């Protein structure tokens, strides 16, 4: 055995780095093991063949937890810089809508007729989202008792046990919250505003990363999560790589060691207590505490099913994680025009979701293992905001394309990838004519590719579907929901744990806090 650590974090994605920083800040000797040669996981940076950087998978920060940033001292000494981007709801008919600070107007400056109702809806989502956001900063409520005795079930009935603190909102608001929280985004959005690009973009935000359409139950819950902090998006200057590097640098300053190219092969358990990690090269590192930022199934396999109850393994096997998001990264020789948008507006978060109905229709094919012909796209051109994004000239366009199956019939082939690229370019060409002629280099990552690169189960954005049966006290599964994962000293700190992914960092922060509360030996 080499030098012993107090704790080992498996996986150098953002949650792993946040967890490591949290443990290091408390004075624990921490080692992060990252299988790949670069840190970042799904937020890792990549590069085109000419060296131009690209946001390989995740490309924006929507929901980074302020509590995580405060813990990292980001306020006093910035780890990275971001620029808030307005949202541009693209309309193939040309009626683009720009949303900044929750207020929509047409791209040509004309007032939007539904600016009022939209603002009211988004404000309400933010107020309700704040209830969920507070919940995200702590381990999920414990329902073990609630599920097995009558008194617990009664408590559950009041929802007080869920930690939903209604005292800050009035009775009417609480009633409205309960009316919509389990319902679907389609109904809630279209109750307030007419269908069109503005409504479509909201619907797209409700389902991004999910195996769900706007009509799927539970999508309002996701929408509240996303809009808890206003629904804005921020571009990290220097790319997602700078964001990850900032986290890693902070963790190192606090004393954490980060090893790349170090693949954990097994978590060693003795007498129902973790005692270290065996690496793929056969070496072992001793530690009484191990946190895993990988998917829940991977975390279970690392320690071995023998360390878990049969019911727990059965639930983990049944966990739903079917990624629907593909990533298309384009290096452009130069920028096409987008009729109706100024160059400044093109720098925004471009959402191609012309209506709620079309988002729902785009979801249909993926149910049958096929990709959308008319996909929902969130694109960003970082080189319009950040000069360092295309240092050699040209531009970079990063597109999140939905819905794309994780396992199409017959598996992924080159022809399938080509078709995905062609479909994406055709969709973008409709709002930016001539874009496809300007592509110098393209990268296509299917959900299966994302799984292969990051280990994320099913290539899923959240490691496990954020559906109502896999949330809060039952995330990832009933009985393993509070980060403690089987043997003593073993924790899940990735997106599969509460409160999920979205580059929040909360899962990593909360897991580290639970581990410290359990007493990580210093």
């Amino acid at each position: 055995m080499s030098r012993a650590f107090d704790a080992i974090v498996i996986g150098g994605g953002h949650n792993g780095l946040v967890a490591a920083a949290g443990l290091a800040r408390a004075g624990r000797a921490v080692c992060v093991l990252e299988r790949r040669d670069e840190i970042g996981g799904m937020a890792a940076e990549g590069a085109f063949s000419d060296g131009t950087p690209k946001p390989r998978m995740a490309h924006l920060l929507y929901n980074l937890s302020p509590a995580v940033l405060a813990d990292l001292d980001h306020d006093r000494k910035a780890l990275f810089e971001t620029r808030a981007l307005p949202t541009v709801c693209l309309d193939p008919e040309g009626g683009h809508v720009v949303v900044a600070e929750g207020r929509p107007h047409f791209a040509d400056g004309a007032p939007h007729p539904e600016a009022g109702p939209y603002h009211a809806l988004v404000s309400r989502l933010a107020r309700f989202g704040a209830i969920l956001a507070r919940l995200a900063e702590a381990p999920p409520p414990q329902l073990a008792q609630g599920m097995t005795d009558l008194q617990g079930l009664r408590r559950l009935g009041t929802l007080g046990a869920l930690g939903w603190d209604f005292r800050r909102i009035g009775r009417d608001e609480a009633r409205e919250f309960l009316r919509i929280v389990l319902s679907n985004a389609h109904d809630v959005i279209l109750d307030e505003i007419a269908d069109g690009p503005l409504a479509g973009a909201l619907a797209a935000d409700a389902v991004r990363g999910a195996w769900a359409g706007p009509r799927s139950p539970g999508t309002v819950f996701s929408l509240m999560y996303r809009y808890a902090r206003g629904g804005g998006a921020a571009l990290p200057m220097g790319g997602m790589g700078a964001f990850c590097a900032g986290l890693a640098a902070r963790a190192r300053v606090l004393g954490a060691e980060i090893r790349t190219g170090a693949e954990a092969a097994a978590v060693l358990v003795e007498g129902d207590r973790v005692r270290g990690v065996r690496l793929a090269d056969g070496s072992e590192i001793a530690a009484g505490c191990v946190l895993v930022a990988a998917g829940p199934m991977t975390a279970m396999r690392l320690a071995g099913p023998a360390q878990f109850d049969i019911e727990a393994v059965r639930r983990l096997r049944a966990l739903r994680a079917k990624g629907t998001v593909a990533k298309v990264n384009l290096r452009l020789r130069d920028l096409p025009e987008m009729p109706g948008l100024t160059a400044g507006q093109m720098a925004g978060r471009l959402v191609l979701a012309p209506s709620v109905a079309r988002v729902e229709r785009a979801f249909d094919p993926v149910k049958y293992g096929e990709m959308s012909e008319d996909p929902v796209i969130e694109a960003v051109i970082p080189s319009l905001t950040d000069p360092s994004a295309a240092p050699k000239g040209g531009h970079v366009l990063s597109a999140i394309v939905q819905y794309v199956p994780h396992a199409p019939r017959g598996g992924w082939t080159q022809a399938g990838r080509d078709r995905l690229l062609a479909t994406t370019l055709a969709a973008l060409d409709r709002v930016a004519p001539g874009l496809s002629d300007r592509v110098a280099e393209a990268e296509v990552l299917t959900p299966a590719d994302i799984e292969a690169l990051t280990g994320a189960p099913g290539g899923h954005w959240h490691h496990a579907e954020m559906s109502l049966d896999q949330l809060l006290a039952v995330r990832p599964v009933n009985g393993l929901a509070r980060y403690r994962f089987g043997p003593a000293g073993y924790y899940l700190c990735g997106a599969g744990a509460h409160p999920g992914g979205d580059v929040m960092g909360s899962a990593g922060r909360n897991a580290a806090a639970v581990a410290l509360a359990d007493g990580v030996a210093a």
Partner: protein
Amino acid sequence: MNARDTSAAGLARDPVPAGLIDGPFHARLAALSQARAWYGWAGCAAPVVLDQVEFEYFAIRNAASLFDISPMHKYRVSGPGAEAMLNRLVTRDVARIAPGRVGYVVWCDEEGMVIDDGTLFRFCADEFRLCCQEPMLGWLEDAAWGFDCTVTDESEAIAALALQGPTAHAILKAAGLDLSDLRPFAHRAPEVGLTVSRTGFTGDLGYELWIAREDALPLWDRLWEAGRAHGLRAVGHDAVNIARIEAGFPVAGVDFQPAQAAERLHRGRRPRELGLERLVDFGKGHFNGRRALIKAEAEGPRFRLLRLDIAGHKPAQGALVYHRKRKEVGHVTSGVWAPTAKRNIALAEIRAPWGTGRADDLWAEIQSCEEGVWERRMMRARPQAGAFFRPARARATPPADF
């Protein structure tokens, strides 16, 4: 056509049999059945009693008995990962069950509630057979996920007979099977295709014989022939049930609710609550329900299954049990007049703390109807530490001849 109309079904293919089906020994049992009393045991027609329960009980205790245990569920677990898989399943340490040995085991759900009990045969390093009362294939397949082993349901393929009683060994010898050095809880294959284990459910000297279903009837005939001079009788459930209560063995579904068959909250019972804590090895590493059981150990048991010696002679089956004749503290799960022990005995579940520490001043409320008149009597119930019937001959190796 009505979905239940099966008149034409047989023309195309064999219909799924309706009602109880015949077990592998049915031809012999049916010929012996004077009582024509059958009950369903795992879908098979099994004898409640064949002749008279008294004759059959005294054959078990004073001579020898033959009881068809084929309806028991039997699962083969084989492969390099079989030991690890079973060690995660059951509460005792499977590594300590040597090849050629049989272990009495229980297994629990994640809350530490007993799912079932049974006997685990170890044939070699990576071959086992688990015999139990409840159907368990789905659970075992879940338990085997991630382990390098396979689970095969042998319930249909393997026939089994329990040969129990003081002359059981003499009968085996007369049948040409020399097993005089077979110790309790050992098993062996004296002939190809036949496994004999020194196990049973009567607390006395006895054996269980395991054979392929198609060879079932010749085995019966061979034992029957050998048993002529040794008082061998075929017996039904009722006689065996008296013997097992005397021996103090709990039965799933009678003395406790198997966790997976209990739909209501808090109906499950932990091993300690059934008096089976000796089967739980907390030191062997993780097993299903271990974490919950460790927590429960700190809290103490909520109940205890006690053996009660009850005054009088009226069987206490179903009786409520009171403390100081006033406070209801439990109930009898199995009660019977024990002819050999010559006592009125019962297994009873008593709540804590009456069942766990202060098991004094307990009374069973026995209701009986004599020729149309109901009587209710409080009878003194005294907990007893050991089995009501536990003869030295059950463990003697070699067994004495009778």
